């Protein structure tokens, strides 16, 4: 590790610079995600009603946010009537304790888990490990990063940052595949055999929730691999964990969201499995944990509440020029990319003060969002909140103050522009040095001879 910049190694810029050391890998990462983005475009463009679907979904979610307390109580009553036990968790700690208490009640210390970004957000795996519970992540990508002892780098494609050769090495050590084997077909088959044994022997299955229906008390889990179903239909106990914003009013609204989700995520017309869990199977115990963990606070932030509409498709990550070239781990948060950057500051403004700045504000995220979250506007607004609250570094704060002064004093602006052009021409090293973060990864332009104002002044009088 480069120790020269150790003060910045934990923020987005510092972590990106680690990822950026291997330029070929950055190119590969960039192209792989762009390939997924292109598939999304093809799927979206094949539906003439796409924009109408987005608008409808956004409005349904808006109604959900405006009536969430009623929907939560309706959902709870229906789920209980369906034979499901409903728990409420104010924060991550309580969520983890609830899951652990259910395990303890059944004397279970091994379980399977399908993908749930909420449990990543709550750091459930670490908590259970400390309490002597073995968790096996069963989504292939999640299993791979779990074996590598890394967090997922993408909410839909957890190991998108890993090369098949690295996965082959991991499988050789942990699953006994041949040394040097990197064929995806063979590696997937090895994981299938290994995880099938886990499904057949674990009595507890934990899943996430994509959508929960207030009207019926059912919840829907979407996977391509079938791991949520394999785990849950074989387990004695099924726990489903969900953020309170996952509710939708009625069953028929699933049609709108299921049409948007997979097309936005990977360009598939739908995930292989969209499983509707309404009641436990005979003899099974089913639990739902409803989690707040900051969501009600975000609901009260007028400028940012729309972020709660998110259906976790990952489209904003695949399209983001910064995400594609900095990798998911550079966001040091369970949810990376543009959406992660507007959700994280709500949880901890100081720890995630850097994230809203990890964007070019190009707006592509907003354009692809299936529920029309104004992501880039929110990134911009978070910057203002974070500066106002004093959570940016003193250097950045000073720079911004200087910039504000310059832009509000026309005479100084003209002087500064001229000075800048002279410096760039005669003393380029003043800006083109390692101490200037803007110089990193950038070529400075040739300074123009005169400013637009000078040019306009001369030419207007001539004509």
């Amino acid at each position, binding site marked *: 590790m480069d120790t020269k910049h150790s003060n910045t190694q934990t923020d987005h810029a510092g972590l990106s610079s680690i990822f950026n050391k291997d330029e070929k890998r950055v190119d590969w990462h960039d192209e792989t995600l762009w390939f997924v983005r292109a598939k999304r475009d093809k799927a979206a463009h094949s539906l003439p009603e796409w924009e109408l679907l987005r608008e409808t979904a956004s409005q349904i979610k808006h109604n959900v946010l405006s009536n969430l307390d009623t929907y939560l109580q309706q959902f709870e009553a229906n789920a209980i009537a369906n034979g499901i036990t409903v728990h*409420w968790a104010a924060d991550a700690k309580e969520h983890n304790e609830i899951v652990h208490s259910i395990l303890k009640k059944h004397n279970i210390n091994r379980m399977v888990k399908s993908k749930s970004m909420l449990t990543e957000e709550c750091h459930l795996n670490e908590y259970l490990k400390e309490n002597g519970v073995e968790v096996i992540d069963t989504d*292939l990508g999640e299993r*791979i990063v779990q074996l590598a002892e890394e967090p997922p780098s993408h909410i839909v494609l957890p190991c998108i940052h*890993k090369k098949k050769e690295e996965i082959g090495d991991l499988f050789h050590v942990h699953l006994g595949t041949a040394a040097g084997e990197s064929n995806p077909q063979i590696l997937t088959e090895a994981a299938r055999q290994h995880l099938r044994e886990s499904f057949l022997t674990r009595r507890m299955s934990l899943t996430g929730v994509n959508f929960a229906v207030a009207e019926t008390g059912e919840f829907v889990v979407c996977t391509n*691999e079938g791991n949520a179903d394999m785990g849950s239909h074989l387990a004695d106990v099924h726990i489903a964990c969900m953020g309170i914003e996952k509710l939708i009013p009625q069953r028929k609204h699933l049609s709108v969201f299921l049409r948007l989700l997979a097309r936005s995520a990977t360009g598939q017309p739908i995930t292989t*499995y969209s499983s509707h869990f309404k009641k436990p199977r005979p003899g099974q115990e089913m639990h739902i944990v409803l989690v707040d963990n900051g969501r009600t606070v975000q609901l009260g932030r007028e400028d940012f509440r729309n972020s709660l509409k998110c259906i976790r498709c990952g489209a904003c990550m695949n399209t983001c020029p910064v995400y594609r070239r900095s990798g998911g781990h550079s966001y040091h948060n369970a949810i990376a990319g543009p959406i992660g950057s507007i959700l994280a500051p709500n949880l901890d403004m100081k720890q995630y003060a850097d994230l809203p700045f990890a964007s070019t504000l190009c707006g592509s995220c907003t354009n692809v969002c299936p529920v029309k979250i104004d992501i880039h506007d929110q990134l911009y607004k978070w910057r203002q909140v974070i500066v106002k609250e004093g959570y940016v570094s003193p250097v950045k704060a000073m720079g911004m103050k200087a910039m504000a002064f310059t832009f509000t004093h026309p005479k100084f602006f003209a002087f500064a522009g001229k000075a800048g052009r002279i410096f760039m021409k005669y003393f380029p090293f003043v800006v083109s040095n390692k101490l200037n973060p803007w110089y990193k990864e950038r070529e400075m332009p040739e300074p123009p001879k005169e400013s637009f104002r000078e040019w306009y002044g001369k030419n207007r009088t001539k004509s």
Partner: protein
Amino acid sequence: MSSREKILAAVKANKPELSVLPEVNIPVSYDGLIEKYTQVATGIGAKVYQVSSIAEVKSLLADSFDLSLRVVTSLDDFSDIAEKDIAGVGPHSLENVELAIIKAEIGVAENSALWIPEGNVQQRVVPFICQHLAVVVAKGQIVPTLHQAYDIIGSAEYGYGAFIAGPSKTADIEQSLVLGAHGPRSLSVFILG
């Protein structure tokens, strides 16, 4: 105050003004449903057969699968080639099922998803634990989009139900598509009628 009360109180205090729930009113075309279904299903790795009788389905299954291995079904029509009494067995005992033959209530042309409520499978794990899955769907039950599918489902009562589209798959290793992740390695759809 319990967490439940705390959360509900916070939502109530912080929620925006009530906005109306929009109508779901999406234009639809009924053109070429079977062709569309077949094209989409094939595109995601399923095999689609248009058949006019159960006998035809059986003959196609015999061509593709080793029927001497364990075959289960929930349909009386297939009880001569498959085990039918699996409602009472433990789900784990189905781990050696080679082929499961079941019926879907609805097929959706836009994404090739098949609606399979719990009542159609005897055991929820059946369409996941089998190595290969065969699904029969009536030609008249193919609808254009998910909106029409949910119109048919309406407020039907079920404990569990799934839309299944294609065989189980993953692309988690360098975006290389591999069929047969944890569930069936293949899906055969028989459009009957």
